[in-house]
C-alpha cells in the first residue's frame, strides 16, 4: 500500500495555487463551523460559570427559580433545618442581587450582579477570594470580576466608584465571566456589606435581609450518598424549596443549561449556521474534486483501460477528499482557536476549545469531505475507457 504511487496526493498538489486555494476553502468552512458552534457553546457554557464554582454537592433554591435569571429567594431557615440531617456537613446561604454600578471613567451606570456571603463560609471555588477575606470585612468594599464587560470600566484593585448610589471601593479582583443573569459583570462582597447596599433601597425595590437567601449550598459528609440525601431533604422540607444535586444528569448545572437550550433560539440559530457552513464546505470540496476528475478524465479512463478497477479510482478520489479535510482542518482549527481567544476577550463569553469539540468538528470535516468525494466519484465511475480511444 505504501509503495503505491501516491496519485491522490500528487494530483492535489500538482497545481500549487489551486491546491492552496482548495485547502484555504476547506479551512474557511472549518473555521466557520468552529466559530458558529463556538458561539453556541460559549453562550451555554457561560451560563454555567457561576454554577460550576458553587462549593457544595447539593443546591437549595426557591421552587419558582427556574433559572438564574429569576430573582426568587427562599426562607433561610430551611437551610438551618437541613443542618440537623445525617449526611449534611454544612449548609450556607448565598445572596445575589442586581445593582447599578457607576463606571468610574464614563460615569454611566450599568447593572451588575452582586454575590455575597458570610466570609467564614467557603461558598465559592474562586481561589482569589481567600486572599482578600480580611479586607472584605471592611465596610463598602468588594472584589470585581476581571471578565466583566468593558462597560463597567477598569477592573483593577483601587477603583472607587458607586454601587446603588453608595460609595464602593474595589479592593481586589477575581476571574469568572458574564452570563445572561449577571448584567455587565460580577462583584463579590461580604454579607454584612450586602445589607448595607440592599437592606433599604427606597420604595421601588424590595428590601433584602438575612431572612431570605438566593442559593443554599449543602456540603455532604464525605462518603454519604448524595442522591439519597437529596431525596431525604426534599421529602422532609416544604414544597417552597427545591433541593437538587449540583452535578449529574438531573443536577442544578445541567438544569440551567437545559433551560437556555429549550427556551431560546440560540441553539437553533447557531446549529443552522453551523450546518450551513458544513454544506458550503461540501459544495466547495465537491467542486474541487469534480474539477480534478473532469480535468484528468482521459487519464483516469486510461487507468481503467490499463486494468484498474472502479474501486481503485474511487479510492483515489476519497483519498483526495481525506487529504483535503485534514490539511484544511489544521489551519481552520488554528485560526479558530485564535478567534476563540479574541472573541472571548471582547464579549466576556466563555469560549472553550475542548477535546470533545475538536474531535467532533474533525469528524464533521471528514464527513464533509467524504460526502463530496462520494458525489464526485460518480463522475469517475461514469468514465468509459472506450471513449479515450480515437479522441
Amino acid at each position, binding site marked *: 500500500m505504501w*509503495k*503505491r*504511487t501516491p*496519485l491522490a496526493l*500528487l*494530483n492535489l*498538489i*500538482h497545481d500549487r495555487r489551486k491546491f492552496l486555494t482548495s485547502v484555504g476553502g476547506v479551512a474557511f468552512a472549518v473555521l466557520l463551523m468552529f466559530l458558529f458552534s463556538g458561539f453556541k457553546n460559549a453562550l451555554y457554557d457561560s451560563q454555567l460559570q457561576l454554577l460550576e464554582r458553587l462549593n457544595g454537592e447539593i443546591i437549595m433554591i426557591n421552587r419558582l427559580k427556574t433559572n438564574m435569571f429569576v430573582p426568587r429567594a427562599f426562607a433561610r431557615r430551611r437551610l438551618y433545618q437541613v443542618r440537623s440531617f445525617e449526611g449534611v456537613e454544612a449548609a450556607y446561604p448565598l445572596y445575589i442581587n442586581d445593582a447599578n454600578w457607576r463606571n468610574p471613567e464614563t460615569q454611566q451606570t450599568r447593572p451588575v450582579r452582586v454575590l455575597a456571603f458570610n466570609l467564614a463560609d467557603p461558598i465559592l471555588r474562586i481561589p482569589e477570594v481567600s486572599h482578600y477575606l480580611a479586607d472584605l470585612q471592611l465596610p463598602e468594599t468588594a472584589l470585581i470580576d476581571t471578565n466583566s464587560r468593558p462597560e463597567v470600566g477598569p477592573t483593577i484593585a483601587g477603583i472607587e466608584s458607586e454601587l446603588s448610589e453608595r460609595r464602593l471601593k474595589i479592593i481586589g479582583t477575581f476571574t469568572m465571566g458574564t452570563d445572561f443573569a449577571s448584567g455587565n459583570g460580577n462583584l463579590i462582597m461580604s454579607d454584612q456589606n450586602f445589607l448595607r447596599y440592599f437592606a433599604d433601597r427606597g420604595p421601588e425595590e424590595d428590601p433584602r435581609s438575612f431572612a431570605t437567601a438566593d442559593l443554599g449550598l449543602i456540603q455532604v459528609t464525605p462518603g454519604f450518598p448524595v442522591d439519597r440525601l437529596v431525596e431525604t431533604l426534599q421529602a422532609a422540607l416544604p414544597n417552597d424549596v427545591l433541593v437538587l444535586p449540583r452535578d449529574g444528569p438531573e443536577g442544578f448545572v445541567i438544569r440551567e443549561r437545559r433551560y437556555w437550550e429549550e427556551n431560546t433560539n440560540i441553539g437553533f440559530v447557531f446549529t443552522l449556521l453551523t450546518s450551513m457552513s458544513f454544506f458550503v464546505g461540501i459544495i466547495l470540496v465537491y467542486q474541487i474534486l469534480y474539477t480534478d476528475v473532469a480535468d*484528468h478524465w*482521459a*487519464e483516469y*479512463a*486510461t*487507468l*481503467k*483501460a*490499463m*486494468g*484498474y*478497477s472502479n474501486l481503485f479510482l474511487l479510492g483515489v478520489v476519497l483519498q483526495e477528499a481525506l487529504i483535503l479535510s485534514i490539511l484544511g482542518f489544521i489551519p481552520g482549527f488554528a485560526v479558530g482557536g485564535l478567534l476563540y481567544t479574541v472573541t472571548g476577550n471582547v464579549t466576556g463569553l466563555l469560549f472553550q476549545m475542548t477535546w470533545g469539540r475538536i474531535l467532533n468538528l474533525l469528524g464533521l470535516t471528514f464527513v464533509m469531505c467524504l460526502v463530496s468525494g462520494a458525489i464526485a466519484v460518480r463522475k469517475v465511475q461514469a468514465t*468509459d*475507457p*472506450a471513449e*479515450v*480511444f*480515437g*479522441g
Partner: protein
Amino acid sequence: MENNVGMITPSGGATTLAPAQDQSLQPPNPDLAVQIQHLDYFFGSGDLRKQALFDINLALPRGQIVIMTGPSGSGKTTLVSLIGALRTVRQGSLRVLGQELVGLGERDLVTVRRNIGFIFQGHNLFESLTARQNVEMSVELTGQFNTKRAQAEAMLGKLGLADRVGYKPNALSGGQKQRVAIARALVNHPQLVLADEPTAALDKQSGRDVVTLLQTLAREEGCTVLMVTHDNRILDVADRIINLVDGRLASDTSPDGYLQANAAVTC
C-alpha cells in the same frame, strides 16, 4: 419485425438474429492472439440502434504486426476497443489471448485488459507524475512494488528516455510523451498491443521514430500489435495491412500488396 424485437429487448434483439446467420464457429486456436468470428456490433438501442461492425472475421497470429486503415467513421476505433475488452460484446465470437470475451461482465473484462498494452492518440499521462511514476502506475497493477522502479527505468531506457525518467510530461516533447506512453503500455510485457492512431498528434519525424521503436520492441518481446493509422509513410513496419470500410473488412494484404493496390487505384 427486427425493429420490434429490438425495441422490446434492445440487448437481446440480435440474439434472436444469431441463428438466422447460421454460421458455424471455428474451434479456439492457441496460435492466434486474436480470433474474431462473425462479430457484429451495435451502438445505441431501440430506434437509435446503429450497426457499426458487420460480420467481422479476423485472425491475428501471435507475433504479427498489423496495421488497420480505413476511412474515418469506418469502425476502426470500435473494433480496437472491442478487442481491448473496453466494451461488452454480445454477438459472434471474440477470443483475445485465448479468452472468449463475448458474454463477459465488467469485472472479467478488467482482468483481460491487464494483459493488453494500450496506446492512444493522446498520451494521457498524469501531469502530476514523472515519466517514471507514470510507467510505474502500470507495473503496480502486477503487484511488483519492489522492482517497479527498475522495471520502469529499464523500459524508459529502451525507448531512449533514460535521461528523462524524472521529468514531468510538461517538460517533455510530444514524441517523448508518446514514448513514455509506449513504455507504460509495454512495461508489463503484454502479449497484445493495441494502438489507435498513436502518431496522429506528432510531427513526421517523431511519428516515424515512435513507430520504429514500437516495432523494434514488439519484435523483441514477440508481442502482437494491432495499430490503427492513416499515416501511409509508416505502413512498412507492418507484416500485414487490413482495411476497414463501413464496418466491414474490405481488404487484408501484405504492405507491398496494399501499396500496389492503392497505387493502381490512384493511377
